[in-house]
């Protein structure tokens, strides 16, 4: 039902839909993703007002292209239904539009996703390090981040 409705509304954006692990999923092109998410949140029949999670995936070891993917796990409190949205992000253009203006919950998740994978979220109000320290080099959850790479130990700042 949900998938059908989405396919009719965004015939060009949706690459693939289906059901996996007890969840409906949709692979969507990233170009008009913000419009797509706005529709998911506001359309009365869908009403996905709850963003459960947002995270990145690196498919380097699977030799897949495009390499990166951002996954959104959505839930509707009104209709009690769920949807997983996958958006592929190519390595050459690591940017995707932010959904903080739609769901506040996306704020920290996007910051984490940015520092761990290097995927930039366009329109994020405060895209800086969340878990790692300022000046951390590289993106540690990428599959090609060297496992024994050590950072320079940060020195304490001035006493205020």
């Amino acid at each position: 039902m949900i998938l059908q409705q989405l396919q009719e509304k965004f015939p060009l954006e949706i690459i693939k839909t289906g059901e996996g692990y007890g969840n409906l999923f949709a692979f969507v092109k990233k170009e008009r993703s913000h419009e797509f998410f706005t529709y998911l949140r506001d359309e009365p029949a869908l009403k996905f007002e709850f963003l459960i999670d947002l995270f990145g995936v690196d498919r380097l070891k699977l030799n897949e292209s495009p390499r990166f993917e951002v996954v959104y796990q959505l839930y509707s409190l009104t209709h009690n239904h769920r949807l997983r949205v996958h958006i592929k992000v190519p390595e050459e253009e690591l940017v995707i539009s932010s959904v903080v203006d739609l769901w506040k919950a996306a704020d920290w998740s996007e910051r984490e996703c940015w520092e761990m994978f290097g995927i930039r979220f366009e329109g994020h109000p405060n895209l800086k390090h969340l878990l790692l320290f300022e000046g951390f080099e590289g993106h540690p959850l990428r599959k090609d981040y060297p496992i024994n790479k050590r950072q320079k130990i940060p020195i304490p700042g001035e006493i205020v």
Partner: protein
Amino acid sequence: MSMKDLFAGAVITTRVKEVVAWGRKNSLWPMPYATACCGIEFMGTVSSYFDISRFGAELVRFSPRQADLLIVLGTINYKQAPILKRIYEQMCEPKWVISAGACASSGGFYDNYSVIQGIDELIPVDVYVPGCPPRPEAILNGVMKIQEKIVAEARGKVVAA
């Protein structure tokens, strides 16, 4: 009671250094720097069953300026590093450091991008206590090792950690 009555006329010979060391050794003021599970073992160590006060070290301070024994218990990551270093710097001399548990001593099993592989990369450590987590007896043993070290230092010996 005057000093004379206390020793009943007997004569005691000692050295100032020894007396100072005796005092230091039996009145350590620890500051726990507990970031993870090892900290729970320290709570056990201070509580009545194991009772660190038997060694004169029950006065746990949460201000580094009032402490002379820093006990680091738990995983120290890169983000924590400047904080730990600053706290160590704020302690007055003489000061000692116990690195309690596998994480503080070597990074433990957190051999990854975010964890310091042993706090000795940051600050000097006097005693390492092994264990994940070390039992309270082991932490007490660490405190006793510090006491031995204090006495030995007063006698001019250098003790290996």
